[in-house]
């Protein structure tokens, strides 16, 4: 056992992923699936990374610190880092890489988050100073995001398609939508990382095929095994299933500005009419926990365990309906497997449960194709998911604040929005905790999101693949397994 637990160099890691598409490219602004996320973390480095246990740790930055008020942040860079073509990393590379996502014509998903940077400059070759518009105690977290990889700059700009990074691996071949082959760099600056000699990541979008590939030993790691059959997969020789519970959660956003969802009692009735335990049991096969209609996960800072868990209560739901002046309720729930795996089944189950509360839910399945542009943010009641954000501030800002781009419930709560701004700049951790607790309650009781469950990240691997303590932010050791794991 002890022998297995010590990292060993060598071997080829073969990975099978659900996602991956022919439209994939190395342009960090367009990364949109696990395949590219993982590739990104293998080939490039970031200013910070998630350490096991959920803490934020410096990566390319040697250290970072804030001036009081958390408005000005100084990041010191490592001096020994080389790109795979031998060039040394400098502050110019960092500035250009971040700038790429900030510009007027940026198409990057992190553009809204980076809007808080009022100014950034290099005070010397290895120091970068950020000045923010408002104080943000959680600022270093954003640099762990996969979009913000550091590429080489020339004339203050990066080549977005460039494959030259500072990471532990270099790209040997890449066929978008099919597979990528990575090769270990001998001169990787990070100690004790990048153990595999070669890594081959293949897109296996068919779930059964992915599991078969794992069982027949054609791949060593797969993501998202089929939960329906996971009990059977566990029995397969040489295979083990592991989980991490991160911030992933499944939601059913209601537009609070659209009748009947504009009535708080109706929303509450709908929230009470769902049997969360049964959903976790049948849809997630137990690989998850019940949600409490707010997006803060147990593992996140400032989660308030004191808030009462909402339970399935058809009678109380009926009561709330009556409060709203209704004896029964007919609603349409738009859904698709694109929302999350099992979304359609979850909706169907919910519909069956809600019948007991006098609520008729018509499940309208939509084409997977185009779901995010046609349904999400468009239909007043649908299924969706959030990968989650590492901090409550970031999570709330992205999906619940009044001018969030992805405010999928159209929720506009005055008190909540004020608290959000106050809490962000607050340094006193206790006060912060209080504020975040109130925001969680507001979200739970007044918000438009029905959040029935938090999902665990589930992955399966062959026995010879070993790893240390896992980081839980995202799937597969926060997407960093390529450089963190090893072959026993």
């Amino acid at each position: 056992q002890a022998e297995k637990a010590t990292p060993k160099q060598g071997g080829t890691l073969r990975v099978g992923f659900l996602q991956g598409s022919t439209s994939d490219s190395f342009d960090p602004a367009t990364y949109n699936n696990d395949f590219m996320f993982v590739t990104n973390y293998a080939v490039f480095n970031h200013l910070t990374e998630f350490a096991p246990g959920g803490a934020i740790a410096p990566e390319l930055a040697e250290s970072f610190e804030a001036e009081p008020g958390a408005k000005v942040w100084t990041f010191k860079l490592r001096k020994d880092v080389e790109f795979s073509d031998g060039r040394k990393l400098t502050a110019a590379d960092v500035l250009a890489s971040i700038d790429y996502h900030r510009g007027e014509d940026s198409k990057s998903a992190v553009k809204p988050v980076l809007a808080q940077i009022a100014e950034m400059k290099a005070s010397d070759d290895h120091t970068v100073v950020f000045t923010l518009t408002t104080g943000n105690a959680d600022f270093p977290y954003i640099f762990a995001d996969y979009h913000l990889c550091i590429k080489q700059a020339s004339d203050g700009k990066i080549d977005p398609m460039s494959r030259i990074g500072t990471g532990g691996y270099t790209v040997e071949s890449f066929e978008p939508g099919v597979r990528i082959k990575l090769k270990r760099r001998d001169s990787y600056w990070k100690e004790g990382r990048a153990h595999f000699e070669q890594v081959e990541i293949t897109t296996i979008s068919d779930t059964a095929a992915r599991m078969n590939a794992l069982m027949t030993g054609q791949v060593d790691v797969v993501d998202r095994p089929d939960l329906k059959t996971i009990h059977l997969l566990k029995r397969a020789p040489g295979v083990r299933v592991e989980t991490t519970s991160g911030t992933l959660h499944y939601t059913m956003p209601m537009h609070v500005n659209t009748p009947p969802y504009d009535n708080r009692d109706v929303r509450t009735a709908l929230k009470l009419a769902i049997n969360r335990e049964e959903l976790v049991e049948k849809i997630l096969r137990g690989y998850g926990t019940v949600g409490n209609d707010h997006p803060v996960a147990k593992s996140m800072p400032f989660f308030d365990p004191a808030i009462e868990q909402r339970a399935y209560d058809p009678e109380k739901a009926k009561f709330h309906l009556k409060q709203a002046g209704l004896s029964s309720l007919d609603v349409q729930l738009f859904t698709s497997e694109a929302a999350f795996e099992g979304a359609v089944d979850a909706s169907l189950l919910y519909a069956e449960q809600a019948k007991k509360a006098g609520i008729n839910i018509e499940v309208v399945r939509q084409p997977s194709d185009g779901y995010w542009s046609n349904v999400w943010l468009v239909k007043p009641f649908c299924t969706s998911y959030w990968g989650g954000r590492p901090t409550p501030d970031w999570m709330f800002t992205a999906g619940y604040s009044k001018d969030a781009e992805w405010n999928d419930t159209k929720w506009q709560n005055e008190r909540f929005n004020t608290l959000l701004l106050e809490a962000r700049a607050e340094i006193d951790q206790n006060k912060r905790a209080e504020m975040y607790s109130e925001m969680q309650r507001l979200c739970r009781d007044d918000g438009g999101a029905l959040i029935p469950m938090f999902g665990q990240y589930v992955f399966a691997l062959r026995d010879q693949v070993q790893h240390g303590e896992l980081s839980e932010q995202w799937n597969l050791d926060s997407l960093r397994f390529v450089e963190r794991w090893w072959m026993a």
Partner: protein
Amino acid sequence: MGRIWILVGERLALGVITLLVVSALIFVGVELLPGDLAQEILGQSATPETVAAFRHELGLDQPAIQRYFHWLLGAVQGDFGTSLANNRPISELLSVRLGNTLFLAAFAATVSIPLALTLGILAALYRNSIFDRLCNVVALIWVSLPEFFVAYVLILFLAVRVALFPSLSNIDPGMPFGELVYRSFLPALTLVLVVMAHMMRMTRAAIINVLASPYIEMARLKGMSRLRVILYHALPNALAPIINVVALNLAYLVVGVVVVEVVFVYPGLGQLFVDAVTHRDVMVVQSVGLLFAAAYILLNLIADVLSIVTNPRLMGERR
């Protein structure tokens, strides 16, 4: 012989027109689909601003007509343009995939066609016997099951239970031929099972159809054996419908194997096409669509020409 070439010429000309219409239709279809490449790639995390910026970068803000003719102009010169999604030349993208697709289709065809014809002939020979019934039932069961299910069953028995063949067909262009065959064995077998029944049954039906002809009776009156009657006398006269069904199935093998490609992770054109459609990568959709349509038209043409060539009545000039 001359008439054949005239026919081929005419059909090719018509084929080109069909291709144009198909490409235009596909273009319009993809344009009409909600969402565009910019939206699809940015996905859930898109904001209107970033989508607009991306659109501009991709040139998607130009009028559709202009983009179509730009592509068409290139395509006519053999340049399919570059994939908007990742800036790679489409022809390069296509050529590898096309090779793979053709390899798989050829593999499945070389197994299934002779097998289907043989079984069809034997079924016609021993029609209504146990053998015939059995052949039919087995073949029908395989067609009645969806391709993915056939694939799963094969994987279960030939890859998981008994590790004879790999369940993933991740082939590389550089692999030796034997390796290619080994790796694509299961997808090919799946396809064989899927297309067998149609061809076999048509062979059987076509042969039985001519068995009531006077020349078959004549052959029997000449004392020819049953096998010879079927092979030498019935088969040549039943070829036209058989050729047509074979062509149809070949077209399917080239064009319609997305599901099998997905299950076996076989990097063929089908996956590329579906991927491109879901991402609204119009140029790629167009180009693959064009290849598919061309394959279909070409196979149909070949079938028609073959039916003529194998029919002396249509071939030789009249006396």
